[in-house]
């Protein structure tokens, strides 16, 4: 008997195989690049990184129901920790692996420091505190020029050191063992970490802690009555979410070989990540991945591609902003959010829990204790 659940399960293996094999088939990447001047493989690498970020946010917002509007700050903190620990301007140079660990732990620690006093706030207020923290972080990164190099960002962040033993087998399958020459090293590195994160979250979701998160989201009061220590459970979700964001930030800085400027970690970034998980389905790992592929894919791959095609076709010789895709991007994001909330608030691939929760109506003026 084939239930929908089984089918989606086999589809997952199919997608995984596709992502694993794509870079090894050199032809599609080269053809795409010649045609649109966009390296799909490189963009996919960024999508994997954003997927880790979105999965982290999903732990906080999706599983635990705490509206976090400042996830980009933790992403940025991760990137800057990796930057500081690796750029030649500082004496640390501790290498990729340890800086990744430090970024994750550092961001998680900051998450705990922010969360400990504020997690008792009601949903909306927590959202504002996280938003405020995000902005404070951005301004601080910009203003502490002596440490963060201001708007220029820290660079160059050196690539990881490849173990010598790995070089020959990589060359055997046609991958150059040089990070700056072959995007596929970063591709597989980020993909590997993303898969590890997915595995971790899948197991956590079904663990005692994961169930406690969901219980808090559904009804904090009832969960507390059942003996769940709400403060500790929320804090753990916050720490994990922020830590994953830090991990994503570390990968981002390493892949980009720069921390980028502080404005790469602004409120818009947080909102776009939130849109990803809402579009895909709050609290659902598969949904989060789908949301990231759709939104970031549109933002980083499809829109520039279409812009390039419009330009090549010479439809828009005067460069009118009305005729480029990029100038409609905000409207498309906005409309997508509005229409989703109106017609499919549970997301494209909802988790069963959230779906059930969203389909029960709330009487006017009676705030539900649930999501937010």
């Amino acid at each position, binding site marked *: 008997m084939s239930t929908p659940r089984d089918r989606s399960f086999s589809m997952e293996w199919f997608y995984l195989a596709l992502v694993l094999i794509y870079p090894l088939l050199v032809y599609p990447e080269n053809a795409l690049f010649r045609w649109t001047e966009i390296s799909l493989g490189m963009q996919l690498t960024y999508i994997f990184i954003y997927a880790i970020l979105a999965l982290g946010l999903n732990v906080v917002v999706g599983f635990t129901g705490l*509206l976090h509007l400042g996830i980009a700050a933790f992403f940025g903190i991760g990137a800057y920790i990796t930057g500081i620990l690796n750029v030649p301007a500082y004496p640390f140079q501790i290498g990729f692996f340890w800086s990744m660990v430090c970024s994750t732990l550092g961001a998680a620690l900051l998450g705990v420091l922010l969360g400990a*006093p*504020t997690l008792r*706030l*009601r*949903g*909306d*207020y927590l*959202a*504002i*505190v996280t*938003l*405020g*923290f995000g*902005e*404070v972080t951005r*301004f*601080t990164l*910009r*203003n502490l020029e002596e440490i963060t190099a201001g708007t220029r960002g820290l660079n160059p962040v050196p690539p990881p050191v490849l173990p010598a033993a790995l070089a020959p087998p990589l060359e055997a399958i046609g991958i150059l063992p040089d990070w700056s020459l072959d995007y596929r090293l970063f591709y597989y590195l980020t993909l590997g970490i993303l898969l590890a994160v997915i595995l971790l979250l899948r197991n956590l979701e079904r663990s005692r802690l994961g169930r406690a998160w969901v219980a808090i989201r559904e009804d904090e*009061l009832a969960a507390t009555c059942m003996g769940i220590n709400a403060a500790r459970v929320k804090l753990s979700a916050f720490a994990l979410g922020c830590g994953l964001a830090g991990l994503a930030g570390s990968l981002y800085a390493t892949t980009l070989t720069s921390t980028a400027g502080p404005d790469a970690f602004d*409120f818009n970034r947080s*909102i776009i990540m*939130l*849109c990803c998980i*809402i579009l895909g389905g*709050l609290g659902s790992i598969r949904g989060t991945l789908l949301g990231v592929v759709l939104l970031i894919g549109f933002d980083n791959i499809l829109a520039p591609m279409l812009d390039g095609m419009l330009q090549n076709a010479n439809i828009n010789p005067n460069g009118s*902003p*009305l005729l480029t895709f990029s*100038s*409609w*991007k*905000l*409207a498309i*994001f*906005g*409309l*997508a*959010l*509005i229409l*989703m*909330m*109106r017609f499919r*608030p549970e997301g494209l691939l909802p988790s069963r829990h959230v779906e059930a*929760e*969203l389909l029960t*109506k*709330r*009487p*006017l*003026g*009676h*705030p*539900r*204790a*649930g*999501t*937010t």
Partner: protein
Amino acid sequence: MVTCLLWADMDSAGFAQAFLQYALIGLTNGALFALVALGYTMVYGIIELINFAHGDVFMLGSFLALTLIGALAGLGWNWDDPAMLCAGIGMLLVVVPIFCAAVNVSIDRIVYKPLRTAPKLAPLVSAIGVSFLLMNVGLLWGGAADRHFPDLVSRQNLLGEGAAIGFTVKDLMVVGITVPIMIALTLFVRLTRLGKAMRATAQNPVAAQLMGINVDRVIALTFAIGGALAGAAAVIYGLYINTVSYQMGFQNGLYAFTAAVLGGIGNIPGAVLGGLVIGLARAFGSAYVGERWTSALVFVILIAILVFRPAGLLGTRTREKV
């Protein structure tokens, strides 16, 4: 040593003067934030929605004002003539608020109203969506770069040229427009039947409905008033700050929103107080901490207030309804 003492001596007089000057700047800016904050707080008070699109309605209002000023000048309106200037500003203060009110009510009608009974996350996310949409409208309307807003109001110091403290015609305009508006709003909410209906709906929509209040109309009215206030603020902001951009709605919206939370969200006098405090904090912050830290300072204040006094300065702690 001697110079140091002299400097300190001069400073105490100079310090008081500078202090007063910053306080004036802060209060003037704060009055502007307060106008925008009122829109956030009134909407939140009634439907518990952080209306992220509010700042962008404000932004569209300033673009409309900019377009109108240009169009009128093209028709031969002489903005340098004081009488025509006053008439022109008066007209802007009617047209732009009506436009913003219409936009705000339409947003509520089309986007938020169908979500009235949905979980709270749904309208919140929709509000972010509307904000993006309006920002895109602003981007296509005014372009990506900052736009110069004509500097129509004179910067002549009312306390006499060369006076130690500056209070310009411009400052007077801001205070002279915002204060009456806020007084009128307070009287409206306190004394009229509709104001009573608004307060009742904010307290308990279901009970208000049972008492025969048309809740939908009250909500629409709230959005209309909030939009109109944002429109008025947009005109004054343009004339006062002289730079507008499609992103200003987001930035100023955040400050205004911070003001609303600071005062106790849902609380009308609180929003005014919050606006003034934010204005003062920014003025003193840029004077004594450094210009580039002011924005961070505002948010640090916000976080501190929420941690130590989550209900805001004037808000009363409400028990969570279960």
